[in-house]
């Protein structure tokens, strides 16, 4: 029941964008709308993934943690759509230009970095990978915090003048990384030393 709700909620932006595209409700520049909305929804869902363990602890509701995989995969879906639309609309399918864009434009470098991290987590999100990677799996998946940080930098570097929203997102990421560090046993030991 909750699982179904999680999937419906995560699919909703994609459904709205798809119908918007079909019925041309995406404004004057639908290409830009698609790039922007898929990007921000990818980021939103990464934040939800980071929030789930905090909420689980606060409400003493450990089952919440298990939805991280579903939400995380949806975040990867939106990030992939975002990257795909960037390649179609902004690069005009000119994939030959991609290495140049990646190396010369830092905001693209950071965004692509975030996507790579999400990709690595997405392909190891199955039971098989959990079983075989064992400890490495945990280490790999803690990288979701790195993905969030890269996404925050990606967003800030894109701003032309108004830093309001971009810095709000960055602040949330900073807070979530901070709470995670405080929860970790390593920090605890280090503090006790």
């Amino acid at each position, binding site marked *: 029941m909750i699982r179904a709700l999680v999937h419906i909620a995560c699919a909703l932006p994609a459904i709205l964008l798809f119908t918007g595209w079909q019925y041309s*409700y995406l*404004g004057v520049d639908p290409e830009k709308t698609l790039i922007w909305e898929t990007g921000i929804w990818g980021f939103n869902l990464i934040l939800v993934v980071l929030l789930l363990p905090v909420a689980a602890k606060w409400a003493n509701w450990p089952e919440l943690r298990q939805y991280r995989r579903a939400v995380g995969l949806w975040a990867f879906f939106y990030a992939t759509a975002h990257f795909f639309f960037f390649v179609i609309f902004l690069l005009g399918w000119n994939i030959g230009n991609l290495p140049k864009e990646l190396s010369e434009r830092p905001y693209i470098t950071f965004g692509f970095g975030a996507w790579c991290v999400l990709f690595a987590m997405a392909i190891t999100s199955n039971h098989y990978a959990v079983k075989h990677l064992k400890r490495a799996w945990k280490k790999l998946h803690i990288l979701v915090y790195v993905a969030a940080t890269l996404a925050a930098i990606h967003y800030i570097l894109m701003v*032309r*003048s108004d830093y309001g929203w971009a810095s709000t997102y960055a602040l949330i990421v900073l807070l979530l990384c901070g709470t995670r560090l405080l929860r970790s046993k390593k920090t605890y030991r280090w503090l006790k030393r």
Partner: protein
Amino acid sequence: MGQVYQFAKDKNCSVMTRVTDPIAYKRRKLIVGALGVASLGAFGNLRYKGRISAQASQLSQDQLETSDKDYIELDRSTLSLTERRITQKYAATNYNNAYEFGWNKSDPAHQSGGFTMRPWSVTFDGLCHRPGTFDVDDLMGMPFNQLEERIYDFRCVEAWSMVIPYNGRPLRQILKAAEPMGSAKYVAFTSIFRPEEMPGQTAPFSAIEWPYVEGLTIEEAMHPLAFATFGVYGDRELPQNGMPFRITLPWKYGFKSAKFVVRVTFMEKQPPATWNQTNPREYGWYSNVYPDIDHPRWSQSTERRIWGDGDIERIKSLPYNGYGGQVAHLYPGDNKKYR
């Protein structure tokens, strides 16, 4: 989940009281909170959708309007490129960069409803023999509907473009009336500062300092292509497009064409320009369209031509936005000096 029954510990009290289980309470709070945030998002989405569908119905009306007009007949200028496809009025008036009203492309159309457009006066000062302040109607020098119409390519620095019919008169006619002195090498334009009507001017995290300022060399300002603009698509009531009075410079990136101009100053030294000051690495002072000089964050070699009817065409960008034949002589030597 829910309530647990518990005897009050106080021995004097034998009444059974209902106490909420603290964990269930927190879970409930979490669900309510999540629902709240989700409904906020949903509400935002609904608003977004409502707005856009309202636009879609408007679109068909505007489509009628523009196709009914015969722009070839309206165009009396030898400088205009005639028989050209133009961008739908709806697109050109609902997809704007006017950060005074907000940084979203739809903000200028949506946030400018309360903008006072009349009376509007423009002050001419600095190095000129006839300084003074004039009403915008006097600057036109003729009834609005008799102004010249020019169809110009508009190229945004963000690598998109539109084809727009502007109503106005050559800027140099107005500048000459002020009789600039021989020592005037530059012309500075100042936009209006009116934070009570322009929400973008009070945005807390804005990197831009208001009012918006721009400048041209006197040769650029006197060039026949430089256009003093009082309307677009035969419509003056469009603050989102910089009315009542703006400058249009088709061979430069759009931001160089100052909007809501209230002051024109003749100067000996190069005046500051807002985007150039905000981020000199990304925006040059001259701001000419040079496809071979990239913006640090994107390529300028192509542009997305927005026609507004759902068609977005990817086309090659041209030096000076295609007006090189008329203006290239103003920029001798290395292009990099005039970026």
